[in-house]
């Protein structure tokens, strides 16, 4: 398994920025968006493994982000519930602001 491409400080900074931009998000939800933006994790299981967060919590947060139209669920494994996701148009706009 290769090392993730971004370091912890970058990730935390991105998370903080997103949390400030969208205060209605939980830190975990902001972290998922930051992880997607930085290329750390594009599915719930990978995020759970990289960050040591229980998978169920990540799944709930992904559901929340999808409900808020910031993420689009692209695939889901029926057995493990591993959920792959991408930024929606609204999510992309937020992430673009982050990049700016």
């Amino acid at each position, binding site marked *: 398994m290769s090392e993730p491409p971004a370091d*912890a400080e970058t990730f935390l900074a991105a998370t903080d920025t997103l949390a400030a931009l969208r205060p209605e998000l939980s830190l975990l939800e902001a972290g998922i968006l930051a992880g997607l933006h930085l290329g750390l994790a594009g599915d719930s299981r990978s995020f759970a493994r990289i960050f040591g967060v229980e998978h169920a919590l990540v799944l*709930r947060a992904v559901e929340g982000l999808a409900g808020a139209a910031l993420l689009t669920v692209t695939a889901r494994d029926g057995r493990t519930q591993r959920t792959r996701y991408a930024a929606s148009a609204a999510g992309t706009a937020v992430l673009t602001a982050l990049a700016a």
Partner: protein
Amino acid sequence: MDRSQGSPKRSSAAGGWGALKSCGKHLLGSRAPLSGARALLSANQPDGFDCPGCAWGDPAHGSSFEFCENGVKAVSWEATDRRATPRFFAKHTVSELRGWTDHALESEGRLTHPMRYDAETDTYRAVAWEEAFAEIGATLRGLDHPDRVEFYTSGRASNEAAYLYQLFARAYGTNNFPDCSNMCHEASGIALTQAIGIGKGTVLLEDFEKANAIFVVGQNPGTNHPRMLGDLRRAAERGARVVVLNPVRERGLERFADPQNSVEMLRGASRPIASHYYQPKPGGDMAAFRGIAKAVFARDAAALAEGRPSLLDHAFIAAHTSAFADYRAAVEATAWAAILDQSGLTREAIETAADVYLGADRVIATWAMGVTQHRHSVATIREIANLLFLRGHIGRPGAGLCPVRGHSNVQGDRTVGINEKPPAALLEALDREFGLSVPRKHGHNVLGAIGAMLDGSAKAFIGLGGNFVRATPDTKLVEKALSGCELTVQIATKLNHSHLVPGRIAYLLPCLGRTEIDRNSRGKVQIVTVEDSMSMVHGSGGINKPASPHLRSEIGIVAGMAAATVGSERIDWVALADDYDLIRDRIERTIPGFAGFNTRVRRPRGFMLRNLAAERVFETATGRAGFSSGPLPVATEHQRASARGDTFVLQTFRSHDQYNTTIYGLDDRYRGVYGERRVVFAHPDDLAALKARAGERVDLVCVHAEDGIERVAEDFRLVPFDMPRGSLAGYYPELNVLVPLSAFGEFSDTPTSKSVLVQVRARAQVRARAAKPLGRAA
């Protein structure tokens, strides 16, 4: 940031895994600008939901459905994308739907809206929640006595839903709590309470790793609780003996089948699991265990005669038991001839089982419906306990009694108060906690509830889940009972036959499934709890998006009905339903063993409710574990059938594509049946004696003349199977029409679904009403 924190190993790279894992911790806790309660809740959420299937324990509680074929079925059945919408109900009358199979009804998918029955059009129509609650409340308030209502509970209800439900019923004024355990493990609860002072088993999952003999009696874990097979397999692999007593030779018990290896399960790949497989006659388990004890006493006498130490644990017997001498006298007074005739086993087989028992220093006995659904089930379970007491196999590692419950929270529901004969301490605690004066008079169990609805003394039925019509015996009578009610309310995820026998006013209220995210009014995710067969209490939180925005949680629905019925002056139902932590606080203050509930349930694997018997503290009248010393039954149903010559003993059981009344599919892979459910299994020699061929279709007629009702199950295909002569087997709920309401277990009131006396009739003869039963050789 200290990069060593929260990392299982130090990483030299700034962007290493350890640092990111530490970030994960921060995301959930230390950096969170959120309230302490919210952060605590998030950090300690259980990892996934409790499987809505069986009650077998989890070594590391989590999404166990990933590892169990039946769990996968249960989850995918709930997570279907099919929907039974108001449009569907507008297109199909209730009368039409009554002609559909159980499988077809549930296959329509998840219910999406609260519905009210419209007698004018014979259809269900969507209704607003508040309108439903208001009419239900007004109807209940209008009844002349609270005992006119039956509050039924399915074993799938969570602890929180069940607690609120019993509080609602008691605040309303009744102890009428028919529940699904009345039809399954009631005999276990009663027998164990008599024997060891608590109606639960005494083993933990870890005990299966330490036992060196496990007696598996009257159960089929391959179909009913597949994860148990993993524990049995591991036990067998390290050399433990697995002794099976089951009339039907079940492939899942004969052979290894790894429930954690779904590929192996799906392909049916397996290896032997039972070291000894005995096929007693139906109802012959008590005689078998008495025979084993008789052999043990004989071996002990021989040892003493040879100057060797006693084989019994006299220290345990003297310090912790009562009535040992009476039991020994009863065993010695029981003739081998009676034991062999009633059990249907050979003396050699029984003595071999005794040798296995004596050769093990840690023994577990585990059982299920094959033991509990007979007339003498309580006596049988006492006999099983007797045998374990002889060598002190209780209250120490690797040994003990283990009834294996069916539905995932049937044990927990009873723990939190679903009990028609509640202990005084519970009622006093409820009075004290809520400022109530709850009723003391005992209420109805399932049979009592059906009787009350039939005679008109009960006017309303509320079902918290389940499928009452199909789960209970004597289907036609139960349909009559329900349809005569003034009010029926069914809380459900999917359509089933119980919804199709509406009372004068009838509601179908759709609820969230256990796999779905349950958020409160502030968006906070709620968790519920359940208790497994090993008395472990786990948290459970859904992960899927709800099937419909109109669904409410079971807890929310109960609260809505309660507020509309008894008001919110003493109990703030809405507040409780909006934060399940508040319900758990109330449970903690009224039910023993739940101290620190909200904290402990969020730990991995939850916590174990204290079980005094597992600590050798026996809260019986004598303060000791009690040997029982009753005689064998005068005649089991098998013996009665043998005496008649034209009669069989029928047991009902599940197919492999089934969980209780939920039919996932039409196959029974382990028994080689595909695409149909109307089959009846019989010994090949019995088919020959009947002059019937395999595949021939027959009707089954219940031989129970006491109430003058002719019960017929029509059009079943005969399938030869390895089982004792004189016995038959087939699937419920289709065969429940044959189970008489008036035949039930002594002391338990459990329908005798494993020992129904029936005759076999050729189809054409029945149609002509000139039928003679097909006889069989004695």
